[in-house]
Every structure is written in structure tokens, then in C-alpha cells.
């Protein structure tokens, strides 16, 4: 440990003297000629290529040079780098990892240092805020909406449902032997949309206490559980598929609840299936969905923070955001770009609309154990071998362990 401390002290000394490494100049704010390292995970080969091109564009500007590393096993790779004191200067941060990283003091707060930060969707800003600090600007996002097979619905003369009652009826009508009307993955990151639509949520807004035991939560869970019990809804695994997209693609479901990523999968694996995206039905409390996002984090331990911030500003600038998301189903995180993004893909309007009322699905450090317990319970509800009160109490108790309240 002495050696680690010595290394840290040396690093600090170097910063002060500004005499080590490849740092040119040394005054804060306008570092140039710096070489930065960036870690990212792969979204798809096409997206990786676009990312590389955007980074090439930045390097050509001549201010700084960025080396990109697209890594497999991202969690393991990033954790190892951070734990070993060799963090990359810039790296992708998944929204559900933000609280843990922020609490461990790994991130430099740069959210408000980019241009026009109020242009980001509010729920995304909330996702990347911890203890009131906006840590990193979101790069893009996806929301969950209702995906349905247009031929199947037309055949059964069913309109895309707009309320819970219509959803029940549609699922019932569309169910055939061996083919449930709705397939939805049994996990919080899907069933949560029903919680949002009922005005329920596992915790309160400040995430200081568990609210699993609210009447609305039981209502939401019971609603979905009943659909499963009646055979009108099922998990992808129970129809022999891995996820909702595969279920729709293989004709094992007429409707599913998935996010933007389904577009790429359908094009590649099931190009002949005709589908459409509609906003999820509204529940007792109105419309609700969940958003998933990734941000560009800057390591607090980085010795080239000014350069890193300059690079991130470039990445989240409107031009580059649009360039990055143009060809892909992920949506720009800037509200002002929604119209331009939709221009050549009007059929994905529902996903964009979700950005306005999506609930952030991020909690506090160490909360994953609670989510795992909730998922365990949801799987039980889908399989029909657990009653709602048991799921509520086991999750509530697990949450109390973590939140301490």
C-alpha cells in the first residue's frame, strides 16, 4: 500500500509541477496536444465504426489525440482499470452504474460543463445526477414501448391498446394455442413500466425508503401477474425464446415490450416480419415508461481533465450527436434534436415520445441486490409460483437492508 500511496503522491506532484507525461502546456482550461484514452463497449459493428469516425474527426482537429478501446466484458475491464488505479480518461458509464461510481469518487462532475446542458431530457439528467451533482452528459438513450406484429393485429381486427383494459382485451384476443398475445421479459427493467403507469415505484423519489408496499404497486404487479396466469402474457423463455424481439420475430407473440434496440435485431434476424411501435397503454396514473442511457464519464483520477472535457463537449455537441444517432435506433439525448432524428424514421415516434415521461430507473449504490430480489419475485409471478404479497415483502425487506430505513 505504501507503493500505491507513493505513486499517488508522485502523480499529484507531477500535476503541480506540470513536468511529466505528454502534457503540453499546463494551465487548466486549455490543455492541448494531450493524448487521451477512452473505453467503450460495443453496441453493434456499425455503431462502433461511426464512433471511430467521430473520434477520427476530433483527432483531425489537432487539439488532442484520443485512443479508443472498445472492450468486451466491459464491467470487468473497467472495474479492473479503476481498481488498479489506471483509469481511462473518458469512458462509457451505464446509467445503473452511476451511483456506485459516483459514491466511489471515480467521476469528475462535468455534466454542466458541456454546452447547453439544459437541452438534455430531464429524466436523463436525473439519471446521471447523484447527491445533487450532475456527473456526466448522456450520449443517447432508448425507451421502452409496445412493439406489435402489424399483420397479426390487422388479422384479429385489434387496434394498438391505449389503456390497461384495452391491453387486456387485445392480449386475450391475440392469444392462440402456443402463442400468447403478449410476451414480456420477467424483470424489473420491463415490468417497471406498469409500475410507472400505476403511479408506483420501488422507492420514494429521494430513494431513502422503500415503497414496495403501496396499494398501487400491488395493483400493477397483480395486473401483469393476472395476464400471465390467464395465459395471455408469458415470458420469452416459456415460449422457447431468449427475449421479446425473438418472440415477435419467430411468431411466438403478437406484442412485446422492448426498446429501440429491437429495430436492429429485427432487421438482421427477422427481416420479413412486419412490426410497428406504439406508445405503451396508459395505466390508472397515466402514461409511463423507462429510459436507458449511457453517458461519457471523465475519471476523477485523470491527469488530463481539461482535454477530456474538451473531447466530451465535442461528442455531445448537436452535430456529432445527430451524426452518431442518424443511422441507428438510439435517440439523441438533446431534446432539440428529436425532430431531425425522426425526420427519416417517423415510425419510431413512440420511442421519442417516451423521453418526455420516462422514469429514471437508477437507484443508490449497492441497490442491485434489491433489484435481483425483485427480479426473482417477478419471475415467480410470471411462472405463477409466487403470490404478489410475498414478492412485495421480500423486496421491501431486501431494500430495507440496503437503504437502512
Amino acid at each position, binding site marked *: 500500500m505504501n507503493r500505491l500511496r507513493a505513486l499517488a503522491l508522485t502523480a499529484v506532484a507531477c500535476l503541480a509541477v506540470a513536468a511529466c507525461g505528454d502534457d503540453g502546456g499546463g494551465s487548466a482550461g486549455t490543455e492541448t496536444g494531450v493524448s487521451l484514452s477512452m473505453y467503450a463497449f460495443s453496441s453493434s459493428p456499425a455503431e462502433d465504426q461511426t464512433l471511430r469516425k467521430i473520434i477520427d474527426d476530433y483527432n483531425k482537429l489537432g487539439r488532442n489525440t484520443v485512443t479508443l478501446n472498445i472492450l468486451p466484458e466491459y464491467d470487468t475491464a473497467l472495474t479492473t482499470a479503476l481498481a488498479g488505479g489506471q483509469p481511462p480518461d473518458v469512458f462509457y458509464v451505464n446509467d445503473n452504474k452511476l451511483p*456506485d461510481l459516483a459514491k466511489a469518487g471515480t467521476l469528475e462532475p462535468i455534466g454542466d460543463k458541456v454546452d447547453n446542458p439544459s437541452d438534455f431530457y430531464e429524466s436523463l439528467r436525473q439519471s446521471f445526477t447523484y447527491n445533487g451533482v450532475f456527473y456526466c452528459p448522456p450520449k443517447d438513450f432508448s425507451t421502452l414501448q409496445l412493439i406489435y406484429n402489424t399483420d397479426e393485429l390487422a388479422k384479429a381486427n385489434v387496434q394498438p391498446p391505449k389503456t390497461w383494459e384495452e391491453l387486456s382485451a387485445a392480449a386475450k384476443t391475440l392469444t392462440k394455442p402456443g402463442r400468447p398475445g403478449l410476451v414480456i421479459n420477467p424483470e424489473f427493467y420491463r415490468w417497471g413500466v406498469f409500475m410507472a403507469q400505476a403511479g408506483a415505484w420501488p422507492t420514494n423519489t429521494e430513494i431513502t425508503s422503500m415503497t414496495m408496499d403501496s396499494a398501487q404497486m400491488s395493483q400493477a404487479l397483480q395486473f401483469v401477474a393476472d395476464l400471465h396466469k390467464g395465459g395471455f402474457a408469458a415470458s420469452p423463455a416459456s415460449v422457447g425464446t431468449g427475449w421479446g424481439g425473438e418472440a415477435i420475430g419467430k411468431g411466438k407473440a403478437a406484442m412485446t415490450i422492448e426498446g429501440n434496440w429491437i429495430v436492429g435485431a429485427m432487421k438482421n434476424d427477422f427481416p420479413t416480419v412486419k412490426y410497428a411501435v406504439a406508445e405503451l397503454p396508459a395505466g390508472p396514473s397515466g402514461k409511463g415508461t423507462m429510459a436507458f442511457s449511457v453517458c461519457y464519464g471523465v475519471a476523477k483520477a485523470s491527469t488530463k481533465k481539461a482535454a477530456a472535457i474538451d473531447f466530451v463537449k465535442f461528442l455531445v455537441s448537436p452535430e456529432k450527436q445527430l451524426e452518431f444517432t442518424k443511422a441507428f435506433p438510439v435517440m439523441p439525448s438533446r431534446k432539440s434534436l428529436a425532430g431531425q432524428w425522426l425526420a427519416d424514421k417517423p415510425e419510431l415516434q413512440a420511442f421519442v415520445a417516451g423521453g418526455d415521461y420516462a422514469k429514471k430507473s437508477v437507484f443508490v449504490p449497492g441497490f442491485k441486490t434489491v433489484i435481483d430480489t425483485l427480479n426473482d419475485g417477478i419471475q415467480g409471478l410470471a411462472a405463477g409460483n409466487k403470490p404478489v404479497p410475498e414478492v412485495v415483502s421480500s423486496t421491501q425487506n431486501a431494500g430495507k437492508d440496503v437503504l437502512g430505513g
Partner: protein
Amino acid sequence: MVDTTQLPGTAETAAVPGPAGRRRRNRTSRIHGRQGLAGWLFVMPALLGLGTFLLLPILLALWVSFRDWSGLAPLDTSTPAGLDNYRDLLVKSGIVQSDFAKSLRNNLYYVLGVVPVQTALAFFLAVVVNAKLLKGKTFFRTAFYFPSVTSSIAVAFIFVFLFSPTGVVNVLLSALLPGSVETVWLNEPDGVFHVVLGWLGVDTPPGLLADHRFMGLSYWDWLSGPSLALLTIMALATWTTIGTFMLMFLAGLQNIPEDLDEAALIDGASPRQRFFRITVPLMRPTLFLVLTLGIIGTWQVFDQIYAMTSGGPQKATLTPAYLIYRDGFENSAMGRAAAIAFIVFAIILVFTGIQRFVLRGRTE
């Protein structure tokens, strides 16, 4: 008559070398000393390698298990935690303890199911492909070794389809059993013992088993048996490891001098006698190797869980090694992950000890 006391392996019944050398009274102390020096010289490079690249990290991990560390920042940000990690896992009631208990239960069934089957099958196949009269040895040896070579991605891909509702396994079972079988194997969380008892009409646990708990799980839950999902993974793992152990048994079989078998044949011993009186005893060192590696490997099963189920459905395939990954790299609880590792370490030592004791007892 073959004097089996002169045979290699019978003097040393356990793998830990005993002081057999010292019993030879003719040895001079000069040769003793030379062996001592040579022994250390031979083993030194390996010790250096193991010490630096394995022992040192292990000691570091042990230290981490007594710290509270998220793993997302350097070690000097960690704080002392004393026995807290171990306490949370073993003693303090809560979700950490019950998850750990489930993983232990699952892994125990896994070990008890896989080790005997993979050892027996590997031995059987080794004897078969070693048979003098077998034509096409190369083809069979390579074929049976292939699963061990195949990457876990490919194996996972294939097994998911083999065990899907309309996959080969269900098709075969439907042909053999009345009615049609459409089980979604990897999605079945209930333990087989519970399932069978359910068929016999026993749906609720007797009070005795349901009311008493150990480490957060009721006795009834402990006695659930492996789930169908876990059984599927056990089948997959056995199938993948048979080849490697077959190879080790094959090498062990090749050590057996041919003339021994011939002498026994001349003496009138039947194939069965030759097998059990000559082959099996001489395979003891190899058997110890395969059983030990089997116990160690099964208590550390991770790759298949990671690739196929992530511990589901409903934590029915959760194992301690997967928990280590989840806590260390997903839950930012690196200290607790390290504690899990050393509890598993202790369990493996106990199992290996039991195994050696049983094997040693057999030969006296």
C-alpha cells in the same frame, strides 16, 4: 504369481508423499542430502512462478476480504471491515445470507451429481479407447475429446437449442414417454425432489422442515434437489469435461505394464479379475487426480452459468463463483466477493480431505 507389493503405487496410497524414502536403511545420508538439494532446485522455478503470479494475488485477495471495498477506486480507498463480510454471508440474516445459502445448496447438488458421473464415464471411455482390439482409435479418441475443445459459446448455443421446448431432448422424451413433453428446461426453477414429491401429492412441506431454517433457507428448501435448469447445466458440464478426464485416465492406463496383464492372463485370471485387481489399484494416483480436479472444478463452476443463465431462473442456478463475479463486478462489493472466494476455498479443502480419507481407507 504376480507380486503386487512390488508394483508402483501400492507403497504410496495417498498422493502426499510420505517418508517412504527414509525407511530404506541402506541409503546414506549423502544421497539424502543430494536429494534434498535436488528436490529444492527442481521445484524452485515453479515455486517462483506460482508464488509471484498466484500466491501473491491470493494473499492480496485474502486481505481484501477483510476490507470494505467497492472495487471502483484504488485499494487505498478501502476501509477496514473486520469480519463483516464473512458475517453478512454466513451469520447475519438478510438477502446476502440467503442468496449465498442458495448458491451453496445449488453447488452442492452440482458437485454430488457431476463428479461421480464424469469420473465414471471418463474412465469407461478411456478403457474403451485404450482397448488393444479397437479399430479407429484415433477417430474415437478425437471424437470423445471434442466437447472439451469446443468453446463454451458454441456449447451454450447448442445446448440452448437442444433443450428448448421444441428441441431434440423434448422430441426424444415425447417419443419415449406417454404424452408430449414440452418442458422449457432452462426455465424450470423447482428442485427435482420437490417436483417428484409434488407428483406424489406432497405439495406443502411438513412443519418440521418448513419451520426450521439454516442460513436463511428452510430445511425444506435445502432439500429441494437440483432444479431442471441446473440439471441441464450439469449435463452440459459433464459432457464438456469428460474428454479432459478421459485423457488423464488414458495416460494413467498407459503406465500399466503390459506384461502384468499377460502374466495374470496366463495365471488364469478373468477379465473382470484383471480389471479390478490390477487396473483399478494401479490407477489410484490418476483417480485421485481426476477426483480432486473434479471437486475443485465443480465447486468453482462459473463459465456456463455466466454464459447461459446468469444465476436464474429465480436463483436456481446461482453458484458461489457466479456470486463472486456479481458482487465483485456488478454490485461493487469487492470485499464481499473475496470473502465468498475464501469460504469456497475452505469448502473445497474439506471435500478434498474427505475424498483422500475415503480413498486411503479403501486400500488398507
